[in-house]
Protein backbone atom coordinates (compact mmCIF):
# COMPACT_ATOMS: atom_id res chain seq x y z
CA UNK A 1 0.00 0.00 0.00
CA UNK A 2 2.99 2.20 0.61
CA UNK A 3 4.14 1.69 -2.96
CA UNK A 4 0.72 2.55 -4.35
CA UNK A 5 0.57 5.76 -2.42
CA UNK A 6 4.05 6.91 -3.39
CA UNK A 7 3.67 6.25 -7.12
CA UNK A 8 0.36 8.09 -7.20
CA UNK A 9 1.46 11.02 -5.05
CA UNK A 10 2.01 14.33 -6.79
CA UNK A 11 5.62 14.57 -7.88
CA UNK A 12 8.23 16.71 -6.25
CA UNK A 13 7.13 16.22 -2.65
CA UNK A 14 7.67 12.61 -1.64
CA UNK A 15 10.91 12.36 -3.54
CA UNK A 16 12.62 14.94 -1.37
CA UNK A 17 10.91 14.01 1.94
CA UNK A 18 13.19 13.05 4.79
CA UNK A 19 13.44 9.31 5.50
CA UNK A 20 15.34 7.93 8.46
CA UNK A 21 17.95 5.27 7.86
CA UNK A 22 17.36 1.79 9.36
CA UNK A 23 19.38 2.49 12.52
CA UNK A 24 17.66 5.84 13.15
CA UNK A 25 14.27 4.27 12.50
CA UNK A 26 14.96 1.54 15.02
CA UNK A 27 15.69 4.21 17.62
CA UNK A 28 12.58 6.15 16.69
CA UNK A 29 10.53 2.99 17.00
CA UNK A 30 11.91 2.30 20.48
CA UNK A 31 11.29 5.87 21.62
CA UNK A 32 7.67 5.75 20.46
CA UNK A 33 7.24 2.34 22.05
CA UNK A 34 8.48 3.65 25.40
CA UNK A 35 6.59 6.94 25.12
CA UNK A 36 3.33 5.04 24.74
CA UNK A 37 4.01 3.28 28.03
CA UNK A 38 4.58 6.51 29.97
CA UNK A 39 0.86 7.08 30.79
CA UNK A 40 0.59 3.58 32.21
CA UNK A 41 3.81 3.97 34.18
CA UNK A 42 2.56 7.29 35.52
CA UNK A 43 -0.73 5.70 36.64
CA UNK A 44 1.09 2.83 38.31
CA UNK A 45 3.41 5.22 40.11
CA UNK A 46 0.50 7.50 41.04
CA UNK A 47 -1.44 4.58 42.47
CA UNK A 48 1.60 3.47 44.45
CA UNK A 49 2.50 6.93 45.74
CA UNK A 50 -1.13 7.97 46.34
CA UNK A 51 -1.04 10.83 43.83
CA UNK A 52 -4.29 10.05 42.05
CA UNK A 53 -6.48 12.27 44.21
CA UNK A 54 -9.50 11.54 46.35
CA UNK A 55 -11.10 9.20 43.80
CA UNK A 56 -8.28 7.14 42.27
CA UNK A 57 -10.59 4.75 40.44
CA UNK A 58 -12.30 7.60 38.64
CA UNK A 59 -8.85 8.99 37.83
CA UNK A 60 -7.72 5.66 36.34
CA UNK A 61 -10.94 5.29 34.34
CA UNK A 62 -10.56 8.78 32.92
CA UNK A 63 -6.85 8.49 32.20
CA UNK A 64 -7.12 5.17 30.36
CA UNK A 65 -10.09 6.52 28.37
CA UNK A 66 -8.22 9.72 27.52
CA UNK A 67 -5.18 7.82 26.31
CA UNK A 68 -7.27 5.41 24.24
CA UNK A 69 -8.79 8.36 22.44
CA UNK A 70 -5.49 10.20 22.06
CA UNK A 71 -3.71 7.15 20.66
CA UNK A 72 -6.62 6.45 18.32
CA UNK A 73 -6.34 9.98 16.98
CA UNK A 74 -2.55 9.66 16.66
CA UNK A 75 -3.04 6.41 14.73
CA UNK A 76 -5.60 8.10 12.51
CA UNK A 77 -3.18 10.99 12.00
CA UNK A 78 -0.50 8.81 10.42
CA UNK A 79 -2.01 8.72 6.94
CA UNK A 80 -2.91 12.45 6.71
CA UNK A 81 0.54 13.31 8.07
CA UNK A 82 2.14 11.11 5.43
CA UNK A 83 0.06 12.76 2.76
CA UNK A 84 1.01 16.24 3.85
CA UNK A 85 4.70 15.68 4.62
CA UNK A 86 5.57 12.81 2.35
CA UNK A 87 7.01 10.93 5.34
CA UNK A 88 5.86 7.53 4.21
CA UNK A 89 8.01 5.73 6.79
CA UNK A 90 5.48 6.89 9.41
CA UNK A 91 3.23 4.05 8.32
CA UNK A 92 5.71 1.62 9.86
CA UNK A 93 4.83 3.05 13.29
CA UNK A 94 1.11 2.79 12.71
CA UNK A 95 0.56 -0.80 13.79
CA UNK A 96 2.27 -0.17 17.11
CA UNK A 97 0.21 2.98 17.71
CA UNK A 98 -3.02 1.20 16.85
CA UNK A 99 -2.19 -1.70 19.13
CA UNK A 100 -1.40 0.71 21.96
CA UNK A 101 -4.80 2.34 21.43
CA UNK A 102 -6.30 -1.13 21.77
CA UNK A 103 -4.16 -1.79 24.84
CA UNK A 104 -5.41 1.33 26.64
CA UNK A 105 -8.98 0.59 25.51
CA UNK A 106 -8.64 -2.85 27.13
CA UNK A 107 -7.34 -1.29 30.35
CA UNK A 108 -10.21 1.21 30.24
CA UNK A 109 -12.78 -1.58 29.83
CA UNK A 110 -11.10 -3.67 32.51
CA UNK A 111 -11.20 -0.73 34.93
CA UNK A 112 -14.91 -0.42 34.31
CA UNK A 113 -15.62 -4.16 34.58
CA UNK A 114 -13.47 -4.71 37.61
CA UNK A 115 -12.97 -1.54 39.66
CA UNK A 116 -16.29 0.05 38.80
CA UNK A 117 -18.67 -2.90 38.50
CA UNK A 118 -16.74 -5.71 40.25
CA UNK A 119 -17.69 -8.11 37.47
CA UNK A 120 -21.35 -7.87 38.43
CA UNK A 121 -22.56 -9.35 35.13
CA UNK A 122 -26.18 -8.37 35.62
CA UNK A 123 -25.28 -4.77 36.39
CA UNK A 124 -22.87 -4.62 33.46
CA UNK A 125 -25.38 -5.97 30.94
CA UNK A 126 -28.01 -3.52 32.22
CA UNK A 127 -25.53 -0.66 31.99
CA UNK A 128 -24.51 -1.54 28.44
CA UNK A 129 -28.12 -1.71 27.29
CA UNK A 130 -29.47 1.26 29.23
CA UNK A 131 -26.68 3.83 29.08
CA UNK A 132 -26.08 5.13 25.58
CA UNK A 133 -22.56 6.29 26.31
CA UNK A 134 -21.61 2.87 27.67
CA UNK A 135 -23.33 1.16 24.72
CA UNK A 136 -21.29 3.28 22.33
CA UNK A 137 -18.04 2.76 24.19
CA UNK A 138 -18.58 -0.97 24.37
CA UNK A 139 -19.48 -1.06 20.66
CA UNK A 140 -16.29 0.80 19.83
CA UNK A 141 -14.28 -1.74 21.80
CA UNK A 142 -15.95 -4.66 19.99
CA UNK A 143 -15.05 -3.07 16.65
CA UNK A 144 -11.43 -2.79 17.76
CA UNK A 145 -11.23 -6.55 18.39
CA UNK A 146 -11.07 -7.72 14.74
CA UNK A 147 -8.60 -4.95 13.98
CA UNK A 148 -6.25 -6.03 16.74
CA UNK A 149 -6.71 -9.69 15.79
CA UNK A 150 -5.75 -9.04 12.16
CA UNK A 151 -2.79 -6.81 12.92
CA UNK A 152 -0.08 -9.45 12.33
CA UNK A 153 1.81 -9.78 9.05
CA UNK A 154 0.42 -13.30 8.69
CA UNK A 155 -3.16 -12.05 8.93
CA UNK A 156 -2.53 -9.26 6.43
CA UNK A 157 -1.19 -11.89 3.97
CA UNK A 158 -4.02 -14.28 4.65
CA UNK A 159 -6.71 -11.63 4.12
CA UNK A 160 -4.98 -10.01 1.19
CA UNK A 161 -4.06 -6.32 1.23
CA UNK A 162 -7.32 -5.09 -0.21
CA UNK A 163 -9.66 -6.99 2.13
CA UNK A 164 -7.42 -6.10 5.06
CA UNK A 165 -7.55 -2.41 4.20
CA UNK A 166 -11.30 -2.52 3.80
CA UNK A 167 -11.67 -4.19 7.22
CA UNK A 168 -9.38 -1.65 8.83
CA UNK A 169 -11.52 1.22 7.60
CA UNK A 170 -13.51 0.32 10.73
CA UNK A 171 -11.04 2.41 12.67
CA UNK A 172 -12.80 5.54 11.38
CA UNK A 173 -16.02 4.29 12.95
CA UNK A 174 -14.17 3.53 16.18
CA UNK A 175 -12.78 7.08 16.21
CA UNK A 176 -16.24 8.59 15.79
CA UNK A 177 -17.77 6.29 18.42
CA UNK A 178 -14.91 7.04 20.80
CA UNK A 179 -15.48 10.78 20.60
CA UNK A 180 -19.26 10.29 20.90
CA UNK A 181 -18.71 8.12 23.99
CA UNK A 182 -16.78 10.94 25.65
CA UNK A 183 -19.21 13.62 24.46
CA UNK A 184 -22.13 11.79 25.96
CA UNK A 185 -20.67 11.11 29.36
CA UNK A 186 -19.53 14.57 30.45
CA UNK A 187 -21.88 16.37 32.78
CA UNK A 188 -21.74 19.77 31.18
CA UNK A 189 -18.31 20.95 30.18
CA UNK A 190 -17.88 19.87 26.54
CA UNK A 191 -14.52 21.60 25.99
CA UNK A 192 -12.46 18.43 25.70
CA UNK A 193 -14.91 16.33 23.67
CA UNK A 194 -15.24 19.25 21.25
CA UNK A 195 -11.46 19.45 20.98
CA UNK A 196 -11.23 15.75 20.13
CA UNK A 197 -14.10 16.05 17.64
CA UNK A 198 -12.33 18.96 15.91
CA UNK A 199 -9.09 16.99 15.62
CA UNK A 200 -10.98 14.02 14.19
CA UNK A 201 -12.80 16.25 11.70
CA UNK A 202 -9.51 17.87 10.66
CA UNK A 203 -7.94 14.48 10.03
CA UNK A 204 -10.89 13.47 7.87
CA UNK A 205 -10.74 16.77 6.00
CA UNK A 206 -7.06 16.27 5.18
CA UNK A 207 -7.83 12.81 3.82
CA UNK A 208 -10.65 14.11 1.64
CA UNK A 209 -8.58 17.02 0.41
CA UNK A 210 -5.73 14.68 -0.46
CA UNK A 211 -7.98 12.16 -2.22
CA UNK A 212 -9.36 14.99 -4.31
CA UNK A 213 -5.92 16.26 -5.22
CA UNK A 214 -4.88 12.75 -6.10
CA UNK A 215 -7.85 12.26 -8.41
CA UNK A 216 -7.09 15.55 -10.16
CA UNK A 217 -3.45 14.52 -10.48
CA UNK A 218 -4.29 11.10 -11.93
CA UNK A 219 -6.77 12.66 -14.32
CA UNK A 220 -4.15 15.15 -15.50
CA UNK A 221 -1.66 12.33 -16.13
CA UNK A 222 -4.04 10.10 -18.07
CA UNK A 223 -5.28 12.83 -20.43
Amino acid at each position, binding site marked *: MQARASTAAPPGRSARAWTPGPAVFRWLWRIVWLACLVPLAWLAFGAYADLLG*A*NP*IEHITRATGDWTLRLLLVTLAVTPLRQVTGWHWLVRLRRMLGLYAFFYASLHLLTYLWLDQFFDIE*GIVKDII*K*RPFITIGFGAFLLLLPLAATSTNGMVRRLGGRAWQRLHKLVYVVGILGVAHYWWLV*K*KDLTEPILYACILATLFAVRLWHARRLRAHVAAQTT
Partner: protein
Amino acid sequence: MLIKRPADIVPSDITPRALFDTRRDFIRAAGLGAGAALLGGLPGVADAQGKRGDKLGPLVKSPFSTDEKLNDYEDITSYCNFYEFGTDKSDPSKNAHRMSTRPWTVSIEGLVQKPRTLGIEEVLKLAPLEERIYRLRCVEAWSMVVPWVGLPLSVLLRQVEPLGSAKYVEFTTLADPKTMPGVRSAVLEWPYVEGLRLDEAMHPLTLMAVGLYGEVLPNQNGAPMRLVVPWKYGFKSAKSIVKIRFTDKEPLSAWSRAAGREYGFYSNVNPDVDHPRWSQGRERRIGEFSKRKTLMFNGYGDQVASLYTGMDLRKYY
Protein backbone atom coordinates in the same frame (compact mmCIF):
# COMPACT_ATOMS: atom_id res chain seq x y z
CA MET B 1 -4.25 14.42 57.00
CA LEU B 2 -3.11 17.88 58.04
CA ILE B 3 -5.78 18.97 60.47
CA LYS B 4 -7.13 17.00 63.36
CA ARG B 5 -10.54 17.44 64.84
CA PRO B 6 -10.40 20.19 67.40
CA ALA B 7 -10.40 19.57 71.10
CA ASP B 8 -13.07 21.47 73.01
CA ILE B 9 -11.79 24.91 73.77
CA VAL B 10 -12.54 26.71 76.96
CA PRO B 11 -13.56 30.36 76.40
CA SER B 12 -10.46 31.73 78.13
CA ASP B 13 -8.32 30.02 75.53
CA ILE B 14 -9.92 31.77 72.61
CA THR B 15 -7.89 34.96 72.43
CA PRO B 16 -4.40 33.52 72.63
CA ARG B 17 -5.49 30.71 70.31
CA ALA B 18 -6.75 33.16 67.72
CA LEU B 19 -3.59 35.20 67.92
CA PHE B 20 -1.55 32.09 67.52
CA ASP B 21 -3.59 30.92 64.54
CA THR B 22 -3.40 34.22 62.70
CA ARG B 23 0.33 34.25 63.15
CA ARG B 24 0.55 30.77 61.69
CA ASP B 25 -1.69 31.86 58.81
CA PHE B 26 0.58 34.75 58.05
CA ILE B 27 3.61 32.51 57.95
CA ARG B 28 1.79 30.00 55.77
CA ALA B 29 0.55 32.66 53.35
CA ALA B 30 3.99 34.18 53.09
CA GLY B 31 5.55 30.78 52.62
CA LEU B 32 3.18 29.89 49.80
CA GLY B 33 3.58 33.31 48.27
CA ALA B 34 -0.17 33.37 48.15
CA GLY B 35 -0.46 37.08 48.73
CA ALA B 36 -3.99 36.50 49.94
CA ALA B 37 -3.16 37.86 53.35
CA LEU B 38 -1.83 41.06 51.82
CA LEU B 39 -4.82 41.57 49.52
CA GLY B 40 -7.27 41.09 52.32
CA GLY B 41 -5.35 43.33 54.69
CA LEU B 42 -2.94 41.96 57.21
CA PRO B 43 -4.64 39.48 59.47
CA GLY B 44 -5.55 40.91 62.81
CA VAL B 45 -7.48 39.70 65.79
CA ALA B 46 -10.59 41.52 64.51
CA ASP B 47 -11.09 39.21 61.53
CA ALA B 48 -9.60 36.16 63.14
CA GLN B 49 -12.78 34.24 62.34
CA GLY B 50 -12.48 34.90 58.63
CA LYS B 51 -9.34 33.00 57.83
CA ARG B 52 -8.96 29.46 56.79
CA GLY B 53 -7.72 27.35 59.63
CA ASP B 54 -9.27 29.54 62.32
CA LYS B 55 -11.13 27.52 64.90
CA LEU B 56 -14.85 28.07 65.24
CA GLY B 57 -15.29 26.40 68.64
CA PRO B 58 -16.84 25.76 71.02
CA LEU B 59 -19.37 23.74 69.04
CA VAL B 60 -22.61 22.10 70.05
CA LYS B 61 -22.86 18.42 69.14
CA SER B 62 -25.89 17.40 67.09
CA PRO B 63 -28.13 14.35 67.36
CA PHE B 64 -28.36 14.42 63.55
CA SER B 65 -24.67 13.54 63.21
CA THR B 66 -23.73 10.16 61.81
CA ASP B 67 -21.01 8.11 63.50
CA GLU B 68 -19.64 6.88 60.17
CA LYS B 69 -15.96 7.29 59.44
CA LEU B 70 -15.13 10.85 58.40
CA ASN B 71 -13.48 11.62 55.11
CA ASP B 72 -10.06 13.25 55.33
CA TYR B 73 -9.84 17.03 55.42
CA GLU B 74 -7.49 16.71 52.47
CA ASP B 75 -10.06 14.82 50.34
CA ILE B 76 -12.96 17.08 51.29
CA THR B 77 -11.02 20.19 50.36
CA SER B 78 -9.33 18.94 47.18
CA TYR B 79 -12.17 17.04 45.46
CA CYS B 80 -14.86 19.63 44.91
CA ASN B 81 -17.46 20.57 42.35
CA PHE B 82 -17.54 24.36 42.32
CA TYR B 83 -17.84 25.30 38.66
CA GLU B 84 -17.25 29.00 39.32
CA PHE B 85 -13.62 27.99 39.85
CA GLY B 86 -13.41 25.46 37.00
CA THR B 87 -15.03 22.18 36.05
CA ASP B 88 -12.23 19.89 37.14
CA LYS B 89 -12.56 18.70 40.72
CA SER B 90 -9.08 19.91 41.54
CA ASP B 91 -9.74 23.40 40.11
CA PRO B 92 -11.55 24.89 43.15
CA SER B 93 -8.71 24.08 45.54
CA LYS B 94 -6.26 25.71 43.11
CA ASN B 95 -8.31 28.82 42.25
CA ALA B 96 -10.63 29.60 45.15
CA HIS B 97 -8.02 31.40 47.27
CA ARG B 98 -8.61 34.52 45.18
CA MET B 99 -12.18 34.91 46.40
CA SER B 100 -12.48 37.36 49.28
CA THR B 101 -14.96 36.29 51.94
CA ARG B 102 -14.63 39.36 54.18
CA PRO B 103 -16.57 41.58 54.12
CA TRP B 104 -19.55 39.43 53.08
CA THR B 105 -23.23 40.08 53.25
CA VAL B 106 -26.27 38.04 52.45
CA SER B 107 -29.46 39.82 51.51
CA ILE B 108 -32.70 38.12 52.55
CA GLU B 109 -35.65 39.47 50.62
CA GLY B 110 -38.76 38.72 48.58
CA LEU B 111 -42.04 37.74 50.22
CA VAL B 112 -41.04 38.72 53.74
CA GLN B 113 -42.18 41.13 56.41
CA LYS B 114 -38.71 42.57 57.11
CA PRO B 115 -36.12 42.21 54.37
CA ARG B 116 -32.61 42.36 55.79
CA THR B 117 -28.99 42.32 54.78
CA LEU B 118 -26.78 40.50 57.24
CA GLY B 119 -23.01 40.51 57.47
CA ILE B 120 -21.32 37.17 57.93
CA GLU B 121 -20.32 38.22 61.47
CA GLU B 122 -24.00 38.70 62.34
CA VAL B 123 -24.91 35.33 60.85
CA LEU B 124 -22.26 33.64 62.99
CA LYS B 125 -23.88 35.12 66.10
CA LEU B 126 -27.48 34.15 65.35
CA ALA B 127 -27.24 30.81 67.13
CA PRO B 128 -24.65 28.62 68.81
CA LEU B 129 -22.67 26.90 66.08
CA GLU B 130 -23.24 23.16 65.79
CA GLU B 131 -21.14 20.39 64.41
CA ARG B 132 -23.19 18.25 62.01
CA ILE B 133 -21.58 15.16 60.57
CA TYR B 134 -23.55 14.46 57.39
CA ARG B 135 -23.31 12.11 54.47
CA LEU B 136 -22.89 13.97 51.19
CA ARG B 137 -24.06 12.21 48.03
CA CYS B 138 -23.01 13.73 44.73
CA VAL B 139 -25.19 13.24 41.65
CA GLU B 140 -22.06 11.74 40.04
CA ALA B 141 -22.42 8.66 42.26
CA TRP B 142 -19.72 9.33 44.83
CA SER B 143 -20.16 10.23 48.48
CA MET B 144 -18.33 11.51 51.53
CA VAL B 145 -18.89 11.96 55.26
CA VAL B 146 -18.29 15.58 56.19
CA PRO B 147 -18.14 17.23 59.63
CA TRP B 148 -19.81 20.55 58.85
CA VAL B 149 -20.12 23.45 61.25
CA GLY B 150 -23.15 25.69 60.94
CA LEU B 151 -26.55 26.73 62.11
CA PRO B 152 -30.00 25.58 61.06
CA LEU B 153 -31.09 27.51 57.97
CA SER B 154 -34.44 28.09 59.68
CA VAL B 155 -32.75 30.35 62.25
CA LEU B 156 -31.54 32.59 59.48
CA LEU B 157 -34.83 32.54 57.58
CA ARG B 158 -36.86 33.48 60.66
CA GLN B 159 -34.96 36.78 60.90
CA VAL B 160 -37.06 38.28 58.11
CA GLU B 161 -40.52 36.99 59.02
CA PRO B 162 -41.65 35.26 55.81
CA LEU B 163 -45.14 36.11 54.52
CA GLY B 164 -47.83 33.44 54.27
CA SER B 165 -47.66 33.67 50.48
CA ALA B 166 -44.02 32.52 50.43
CA LYS B 167 -43.81 28.92 49.21
CA TYR B 168 -40.24 28.59 48.02
CA VAL B 169 -36.80 29.91 48.83
CA GLU B 170 -34.31 30.79 46.12
CA PHE B 171 -30.57 30.96 46.77
CA THR B 172 -28.22 33.00 44.62
CA THR B 173 -24.48 32.58 44.91
CA LEU B 174 -21.51 34.82 44.15
CA ALA B 175 -20.54 35.23 40.49
CA ASP B 176 -17.46 37.42 40.33
CA PRO B 177 -15.59 37.08 37.03
CA LYS B 178 -12.58 38.86 38.52
CA THR B 179 -11.88 36.17 41.10
CA MET B 180 -13.78 33.20 39.65
CA PRO B 181 -12.27 31.99 36.38
CA GLY B 182 -15.14 29.55 35.71
CA VAL B 183 -17.67 32.39 35.56
CA ARG B 184 -15.97 33.62 32.40
CA SER B 185 -17.02 30.45 30.58
CA ALA B 186 -20.65 29.76 29.73
CA VAL B 187 -20.74 26.23 31.10
CA LEU B 188 -23.71 27.20 33.30
CA GLU B 189 -25.74 30.37 33.47
CA TRP B 190 -24.33 32.62 36.16
CA PRO B 191 -24.98 33.38 38.90
CA TYR B 192 -25.63 29.87 40.15
CA VAL B 193 -29.17 29.62 41.51
CA GLU B 194 -30.71 26.92 43.65
CA GLY B 195 -34.04 26.54 45.35
CA LEU B 196 -35.94 24.66 48.03
CA ARG B 197 -39.57 24.36 48.97
CA LEU B 198 -40.22 26.40 52.11
CA ASP B 199 -40.79 23.29 54.26
CA GLU B 200 -37.52 21.79 52.99
CA ALA B 201 -35.69 25.02 53.77
CA MET B 202 -37.18 25.15 57.29
CA HIS B 203 -36.46 21.48 57.99
CA PRO B 204 -34.17 21.00 61.01
CA LEU B 205 -31.68 18.97 58.92
CA THR B 206 -31.12 21.84 56.50
CA LEU B 207 -27.95 23.61 57.50
CA MET B 208 -26.25 26.88 56.67
CA ALA B 209 -22.66 25.75 56.96
CA VAL B 210 -19.87 28.14 57.88
CA GLY B 211 -17.18 25.66 58.79
CA LEU B 212 -15.58 22.30 58.29
CA TYR B 213 -13.65 20.15 60.76
CA GLY B 214 -14.23 22.76 63.45
CA GLU B 215 -12.60 25.49 61.38
CA VAL B 216 -13.65 28.31 59.08
CA LEU B 217 -14.96 26.91 55.80
CA PRO B 218 -12.25 26.80 53.11
CA ASN B 219 -13.13 28.88 50.05
CA GLN B 220 -13.32 25.88 47.72
CA ASN B 221 -16.04 24.37 49.91
CA GLY B 222 -18.27 27.42 49.60
CA ALA B 223 -17.04 30.00 52.12
CA PRO B 224 -18.17 31.94 53.93
CA MET B 225 -21.59 30.28 54.01
CA ARG B 226 -23.16 27.51 52.04
CA LEU B 227 -26.24 25.38 52.13
CA VAL B 228 -26.10 21.73 53.20
CA VAL B 229 -29.19 19.68 52.36
CA PRO B 230 -28.01 16.16 53.14
CA TRP B 231 -30.90 14.20 51.61
CA LYS B 232 -30.49 15.83 48.21
CA TYR B 233 -27.73 15.53 45.63
CA GLY B 234 -24.77 17.75 46.40
CA PHE B 235 -25.43 20.38 43.73
CA LYS B 236 -28.58 21.48 45.63
CA SER B 237 -26.31 22.70 48.43
CA ALA B 238 -25.39 26.06 46.93
CA LYS B 239 -22.05 27.57 47.90
CA SER B 240 -20.93 31.12 48.75
CA ILE B 241 -24.47 32.47 49.07
CA VAL B 242 -25.13 36.19 48.64
CA LYS B 243 -28.91 36.33 48.28
CA ILE B 244 -31.89 34.45 49.69
CA ARG B 245 -35.28 35.27 48.22
CA PHE B 246 -38.72 34.03 49.27
CA THR B 247 -41.06 33.45 46.33
CA ASP B 248 -44.42 31.92 45.50
CA LYS B 249 -43.09 30.22 42.34
CA GLU B 250 -40.76 27.26 42.08
CA PRO B 251 -37.28 28.69 41.43
CA LEU B 252 -35.50 27.54 38.29
CA SER B 253 -32.16 26.21 39.45
CA ALA B 254 -28.99 26.55 37.38
CA TRP B 255 -28.78 22.82 36.68
CA SER B 256 -32.47 22.51 35.78
CA ARG B 257 -32.05 25.39 33.39
CA ALA B 258 -29.01 23.73 31.83
CA ALA B 259 -30.43 20.20 31.60
CA GLY B 260 -33.89 19.91 33.11
CA ARG B 261 -34.38 16.31 32.07
CA GLU B 262 -31.33 15.29 34.07
CA TYR B 263 -31.50 17.59 37.09
CA GLY B 264 -34.95 18.22 38.51
CA PHE B 265 -36.02 20.77 41.12
CA TYR B 266 -36.25 18.21 43.92
CA SER B 267 -33.15 16.12 43.18
CA ASN B 268 -33.66 13.99 46.27
CA VAL B 269 -31.15 11.16 46.54
CA ASN B 270 -33.09 8.21 45.14
CA PRO B 271 -31.49 4.89 44.14
CA ASP B 272 -34.61 3.96 42.13
CA VAL B 273 -34.60 6.98 39.85
CA ASP B 274 -31.51 6.90 37.66
CA HIS B 275 -29.84 9.82 36.05
CA PRO B 276 -30.75 9.46 32.37
CA ARG B 277 -27.13 8.61 31.61
CA TRP B 278 -25.97 6.67 34.65
CA SER B 279 -27.27 4.56 37.52
CA GLN B 280 -27.92 6.06 40.94
CA GLY B 281 -28.27 2.65 42.57
CA ARG B 282 -24.79 2.59 44.03
CA GLU B 283 -22.12 5.05 44.99
CA ARG B 284 -18.42 5.10 45.70
CA ARG B 285 -17.64 6.42 49.16
CA ILE B 286 -14.43 8.37 48.70
CA GLY B 287 -11.64 6.37 50.32
CA GLU B 288 -13.36 3.03 49.82
CA PHE B 289 -12.62 0.47 47.16
CA SER B 290 -15.93 -1.23 46.45
CA LYS B 291 -19.15 0.63 45.85
CA ARG B 292 -21.97 0.70 48.36
CA LYS B 293 -25.71 0.79 47.86
CA THR B 294 -27.23 4.23 47.76
CA LEU B 295 -29.89 4.80 50.42
CA MET B 296 -33.24 6.45 49.78
CA PHE B 297 -32.99 10.14 50.77
CA ASN B 298 -29.30 9.39 51.40
CA GLY B 299 -30.30 7.58 54.59
CA TYR B 300 -32.32 10.52 56.00
CA GLY B 301 -35.72 8.99 55.14
CA ASP B 302 -36.86 8.85 58.78
CA GLN B 303 -36.54 12.61 59.03
CA VAL B 304 -37.65 13.76 55.57
CA ALA B 305 -39.80 11.12 53.84
CA SER B 306 -42.94 12.73 55.26
CA LEU B 307 -42.20 15.90 53.27
CA TYR B 308 -43.01 13.97 50.11
CA THR B 309 -45.96 11.75 51.03
CA GLY B 310 -48.30 11.27 48.11
CA MET B 311 -45.78 12.63 45.60
CA ASP B 312 -44.65 10.57 42.63
CA LEU B 313 -40.89 10.84 43.08
CA ARG B 314 -40.28 9.59 39.54
CA LYS B 315 -42.19 12.55 38.22
CA TYR B 316 -40.81 15.03 40.74
CA TYR B 317 -37.19 13.91 40.47
